[in-house]
């Protein structure tokens, strides 16, 4: 079995990361409903395996571009949840000094070259980062996270083509959670809604002369294996890839979304595919890890979350004059 080939330490990291994302998001949900978060919040609940499996295959120096649903990407890339809670609360101790908030939370020193609130907005930056890596011969690769919504943006296709013709080390990681905001993305029998005509987007690679696969995005091992293979092609041959991860968004597009576009059955099916209990069960059944070890991780993370929220709550708001800094140097504001 594939799992046995992966070091126990990495498996434990995967489990810990997925649980950390889940608990972070559950807390963010609670904080938003309690009126403690400004703006809009888009939860990653149900998609944890995708970010986790992907980051498990990357080197620390590799780049990613994130999006409006980006908390999970940052946690998996090594983000400090204290600074993350502070950022989404708009505090000065946040990663972006409170200027970015939930949709733009990023830490460049971890290789996250921004989180983009415009769907597909980060594609260009991700391609350009790979160009810099190639010209500077740094061996870093660039993973562009985009959903099934971003896939139908023009720049996603321009980006795939440009990366292909320039032989850039890029992975287009499509996190397909089934919904483009409030519209079903791929055709289902008896449902006239769709945002594209084919289900498996791994096939799109052929249109650009690059490899592509469609995998189960709720299985962190499957994501890890697919991304690892793509990183090898990218790093050694400068060949970009498409990795299409079929996952599932358990919550609304944003906190407060009445979800008029989906029914209870759909949500139930989504929860049945929940990646965390499934991975936990597989770890225990494989005999590699004991249940108690996992329970201990759960408890540690609960504590870590509480401490991080305390830190963020106690952090000051930014000085209002901070609003004028970091625009363009030497320019009247």
């Amino acid at each position: 079995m594939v799992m046995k080939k992966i070091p126990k330490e990495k498996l434990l990291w995967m489990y810990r990361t997925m649980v950390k994302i889940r608990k972070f998001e559950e807390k963010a949900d609670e904080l938003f409903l309690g009126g403690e978060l400004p703006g809009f919040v888009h939860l990653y609940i149900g998609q944890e395996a995708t970010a986790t499996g992907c980051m498990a295959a990357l080197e620390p120096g590799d780049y990613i571009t994130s999006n409006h649903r980006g908390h999970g990407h940052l946690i998996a890339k090594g983000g400090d949840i204290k600074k993350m809670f502070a950022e989404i609360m708009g505090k000065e101790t946040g990663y972006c000094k409170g200027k970015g908030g939930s949709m733009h939370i990023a830490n460049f020193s971890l290789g996250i070259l921004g989180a983009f609130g415009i769907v597909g907005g980060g594609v260009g930056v991700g391609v350009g980062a790979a160009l810099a890596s190639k010209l500077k011969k740094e061996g870093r690769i660039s993973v562009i996270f985009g959903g099934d919504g971003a896939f139908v943006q023009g720049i996603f296709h321009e980006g795939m083509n440009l990366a292909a013709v320039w032989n850039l080390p890029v992975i287009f990681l499509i996190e397909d959670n089934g919904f483009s905001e409030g519209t079903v993305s791929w055709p289902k029998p008896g449902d006239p809604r769709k945002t594209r005509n084919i289900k498996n987007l791994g096939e799109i690679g052929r249109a650009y002369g690059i490899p592509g696969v469609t995998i189960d995005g709720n299985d962190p091992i499957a994501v890890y294996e697919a991304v690892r293979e793509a990183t090898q092609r990218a790093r050694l041959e400068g060949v970009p890839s498409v990795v299409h991860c079929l996952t599932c968004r358990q919550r609304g597009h944003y906190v407060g979304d009445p979800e008029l576009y989906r029914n209870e059955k759909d949500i139930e099916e989504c929860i049945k595919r929940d990646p965390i209990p499934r991975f936990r069960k597989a770890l225990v059944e494989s005999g590699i890890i004991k249940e108690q070890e996992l329970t201990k991780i759960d408890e540690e993370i609960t504590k870590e979350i509480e401490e991080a929220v305390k830190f963020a709550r106690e952090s000051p708001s930014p000085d209002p004059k901070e609003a004028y800094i970091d625009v363009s140097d030497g320019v009247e504001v």
Partner: protein
Amino acid sequence: MPKKSFADAIYEALKQEMERDPSIILIGEDIGRAEGIFGVTRDLWKIFGEERVRDTPISEAAFIGAAGGAAICGLRPVVELMFCDFFGVAMDQIYNQLAKIRYMSGGQCRFPVVLRTTIGGGLGASAHHSQVLYSIFAHVPGIKVVVPSTPYDAKGLLIKAIRDDDFVMFFEHKTFYAFAQLAGEVPDEPYTIPFGKADVKREGKDVTVVATANMVHESLKAAEELEKEGISVEVVDPRTLVPLDTETIVNSVKKTKRLVVADEDYIYFGVTGEIIARVVERGVPLKVPPRRVATPRVPIPCSPALENEILPNKDKIKKAIKDVVSPSKEI
């Protein structure tokens, strides 16, 4: 000092900066073996190689966005876009991404990207190849806007733009490139001109004309003709719209107490209105209401008869100047 064309000046700035700094790359449509649509990039692809002088697919959004990503990761891209009108297909990358990532991230990155493009009418190139549009970009936070009007300014401002750590858009009037009369003295060695420093292109005492790009030359011609009629015109070229040198403009208007603004961009909600607002906000006393000469709210037509009708020019500037110096118009 040697005389050089506007295109020579831009070419020389690019070449000298690329020699100085290997992290500078050029990205754009037809800038390599085609040597640039207006013959600016010439043989740079031969000198610096096709990794550093990169022809692109016609995918403006992707290659402008990619310039942003490359800049975050240690390169200094200079992008050429054939016509400013083409920015429409890449607007999200420009005004939401390159302009804002530094700020949104709390200052975690810098954006040493220069976007060079061409502006302006007068060639009968009609609605999609003749606009000016820089006021759109001057409106958005996070973009510096440079508009040179002479070969000397072009070289010094472009070198400054390339060395700047912020996102700069650089607008070149397309009638300038090969315009023999515009050829001017340009030092062979590299030099910079600071942003936010207007240049008084002609001194005068009766009226201030603030003019940009091609309107600088139309205003100078108007000033020369009006001198024979006894009207002394001062011509101020801001050179950069963001940052804008309000001081120099205000000081000139304090002296002349009369203001005309001449600009080829569309008249409403643009540069002309902004410059007048800056002067009025400073409480500078004017003898007569200010006037603006700009392109009306009309897409640029092809026929020279129609294009000439709408574009601002020397005669329209002369008329506006005569209006504001007329004693009957005094407040």
